[in-house]
């Protein structure tokens, strides 16, 4: 899905190649590409229409700007960059403003009610939120209010058990009664947050929707979150609007973002209901939940990777000072296989590959398609390990006989060696181009002097040129507790890799 989207955007961008200004005609062509790709990505029809309209207005404004403005930095960017920047900012605007707050009652317990269609991920998300809150020193109580789906109660109990969070359930009781009783129970046992896991239902199922209204009326939840599968199609809006009409939602949670479906539903729902997106869920294990960031999701939709998220992950596993030096050097085109190896090792420390790959623009290209395989890294690593130092620093010396030696040393074929070298060369070229395109000046501190973007957006972000090394930011040195956290994160990541499930 993202591929579809990003292809569209890239195609749109390409339409400007070699042009010097945005004209109504080339905007129209580009917009047609974008319209189609957004539709293929399940963005709601009317949302796409508005999006195209707004982007067009803004893009046309840019022509005027570029023409009349004498600010030299504006003239430095290409129309293509402007155009994509406009798309990106429009997406960010559509999905913002950010409001990831959970409301807490002045008098506990606070209540979070999770609702949604069948199979969208409510029960799993209930567990995730409970885990999330207990890390914030809350004492949540999970409530099994799905009495319909076979073994739904047992499912929540297993989840609660594995997270050491108590689960409230009652046999032979209606869901509204269970919820009310659970809140009483929480009050008397000192739980400060109650999480209601309700049964999946269709928005057109009147009696089941009534049941939700009853629960809401009785318990007056501080938060009602609609859980929504990221893969949902054009129906997203209809469903969300109906749930919102009947229950006045406080926000949405998007699940299964670890697949290749991205953005479409988030964009539509936010736009049409105006309710904020609260959390993004990216896996089946209970730590796979993050607070929503529009910028990250917009970058993903644009197909240039979740650069911000990637940077956050990276910050935790790399040596900042060295990274700074490396980045500067690599951007000059002095990128070696040693750097490549080091990057791979950092990437491996960051956790399961699938997550990361979605965030790295170049990597998905490198590995071919969406299905990225942890083994690809192992392969590259083993090949580089079989090289001499000279070969690693100057890969251009690797000709046929060396390839054969490296191949046999790592139990691979010479063709595999060639393939890896080809990928490496592509990366090196990209890095060099990126260095030329001005990112280097940013790295050396000129954040507000980004040509043409007035310091607003990050051109690296927008143009998709960001590579891991280049996207490292330079925060303050880590404290001991932070280091400890990172260590445990690494350990967890290692464990996660062992368990193929935890992606």
């Amino acid at each position, binding site marked *: 899905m993202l591929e579809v989207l990003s292809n569209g955007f890239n195609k749109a961008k390409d339409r400007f190649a070699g042009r010097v200004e945005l004209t109504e005609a080339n905007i129209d062509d580009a917009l047609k590409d974008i319209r189609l790709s957004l539709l293929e990505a399940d963005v709601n029809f009317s949302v796409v229409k508005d999006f195209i309209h707004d982007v067009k207005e803004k893009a046309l404004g840019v022509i005027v700007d570029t023409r009349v403005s004498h600010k030299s930095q504006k003239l430095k960017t290409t129309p293509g960059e402007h155009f994509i920047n406009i798309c990106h900012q429009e997406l960010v605007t559509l999905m913002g403003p950010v409001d990831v707050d959970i409301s807490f009652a002045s008098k506990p317990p606070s209540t979070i009610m999770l609702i949604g269609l069948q199979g969208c991920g409510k029960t799993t998300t209930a567990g995730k939120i409970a885990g999330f809150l207990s890390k914030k020193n809350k004492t949540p109580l999970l409530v099994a209010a799905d009495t319909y*789906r076979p073994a739904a109660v047992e499912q929540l109990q*297993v989840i609660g058990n594995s997270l050491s969070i108590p689960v409230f359930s009652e046999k032979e009781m209606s869901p509204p009664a269970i919820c009310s009783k659970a809140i009483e129970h929480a009050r008397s046992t000192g739980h400060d947050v109650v999480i209601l896991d309700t049964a999946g239902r269709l928005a057109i199922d009147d009696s089941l929707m009534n049941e939700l209204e009853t629960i809401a009326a009785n318990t007056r939840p501080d938060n009602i979150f609609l859980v929504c599968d990221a893969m949902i199609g054009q129906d997203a809006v209809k*469903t969300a609007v109906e749930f919102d009409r009947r229950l006045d939602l406080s926000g949405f949670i998007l699940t299964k973002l670890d697949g290749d479906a991205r953005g479409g539903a988030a964009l539509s729902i936010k736009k049409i209901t105006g309710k904020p997106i609260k959390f993004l869920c990216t896996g089946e294990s209970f730590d796979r939940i993050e607070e929503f960031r529009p910028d990250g999701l917009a970058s993903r939709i644009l197909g240039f990777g979740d650069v911000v998220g990637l940077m956050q992950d990276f910050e935790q596993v790399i040596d900042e000072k060295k990274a700074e030096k490396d980045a500067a050097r690599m951007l000059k085109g002095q990128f070696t296989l040693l750097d490549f190896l080091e990057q791979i090792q950092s990437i491996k420390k960051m956790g399961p590959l699938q997550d990361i790959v979605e965030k790295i623009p170049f990597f998905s290209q490198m590995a071919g398609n969406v299905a990225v395989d942890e083994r690809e890294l192992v392969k590259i690593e083993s090949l580089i390990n079989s090289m001499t130092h000279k070969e690693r620093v100057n890969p251009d010396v690797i000709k046929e006989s060396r390839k054969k030696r490296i191949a046999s040393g790592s139990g691979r074929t010479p063709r595999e060696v060639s393939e890896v070298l080809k990928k490496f060369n592509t990366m090196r070229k990209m890095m060099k181009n990126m260095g030329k395109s001005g990112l280097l000046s940013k790295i050396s501190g000129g954040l507000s002097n980004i040509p043409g973007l007035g310091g607003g957006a990050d051109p690296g972000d927008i143009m998709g040129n960001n590579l891991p090394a280049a996207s490292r930011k330079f925060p303050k040195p880590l404290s001991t507790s932070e280091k400890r956290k990172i260590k445990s994160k690494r350990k967890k990541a290692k464990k996660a890799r062992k368990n193929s499930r935890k992606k």
Partner: protein
Amino acid sequence: MNEKKEKGGFFKRLKDGLSKTHKAVIKRVDEITCGKRVINDDLLDNLEEILITSDIGAVTVQRLMEKIRWKVNRKELKIPEKIHNALKDEIFSILSNHQQTLQADTLQKPFTILTVGVNGTGKTTTIAKMANIFISQGHSVLLAAADTFRAAATEQLEIWADRVGCKVIKHRQGADPSAVAFDALKSAQAKGIDVLIIDTAGRLHTKAPLMDEIKKVSRIIGRELDGAPHETLLVLDATTGQNAISQAKMFKQAINISGLALTKLDGTAKGGVIVGISETMQIPIRYIGVGEKIDDLREFNPKEFADALFEN
């Protein structure tokens, strides 16, 4: 399923299940076509919108619209009201191209069905519904609880098995799904069971290790029984948009998907993705799910589907 006997009821229930879709689509096609005497671009644009909001997918819609436009240009289509029929014919022909119902061939005991799909699409429920159909046809059925990952997945399957009256082979949570499938197959062979249905954990098609896991299940069954699995059924959720096509492609690439089931057609999701999938994938659609109850599974019938979708 005894279709003859059930014909009226079956069709009605299918229509009921699809009535939302039906009403929404038809009402809007009619709104657009009624009262307009000439077919113009505006009208065709509106039609395109209706198809896209049915999840048919921009690419398939483009293709459909091209055909309609072609007919309009050749003056084969002159009256706006006829557009409706032209579309119906077109969609029917796409849907019926590779259609074939699923028959349990019990000469190869057990007729083995491997059920796969992404998370939460309705695999387990569909298995229960299928088991019910096979049992009502007089077959003996055994279920394999090879979703050893999701919390209480085995319990869920056991409750369903209890309701339809068949047995479940299970292992501990976290056990190797291939081992469960293997044991179930051995057990079915020993008992002379007609149909074995294997439930597997939901998995995103983009995750290589999980796709490897399912490949292994399929391979191991094939090793033990010639031609098994006889059916590899991919369960798709009709609420899903264009991602369903990606799912179908990637699952087919990994294991040889021989049939599709589309669930949750009782919702407002229009199920238009069926058309795109049928066109791209050339895999028969075996069943559609129209509710959470045990008999809410229908054999997919392109004629009835297109009729129910387009009939006034």
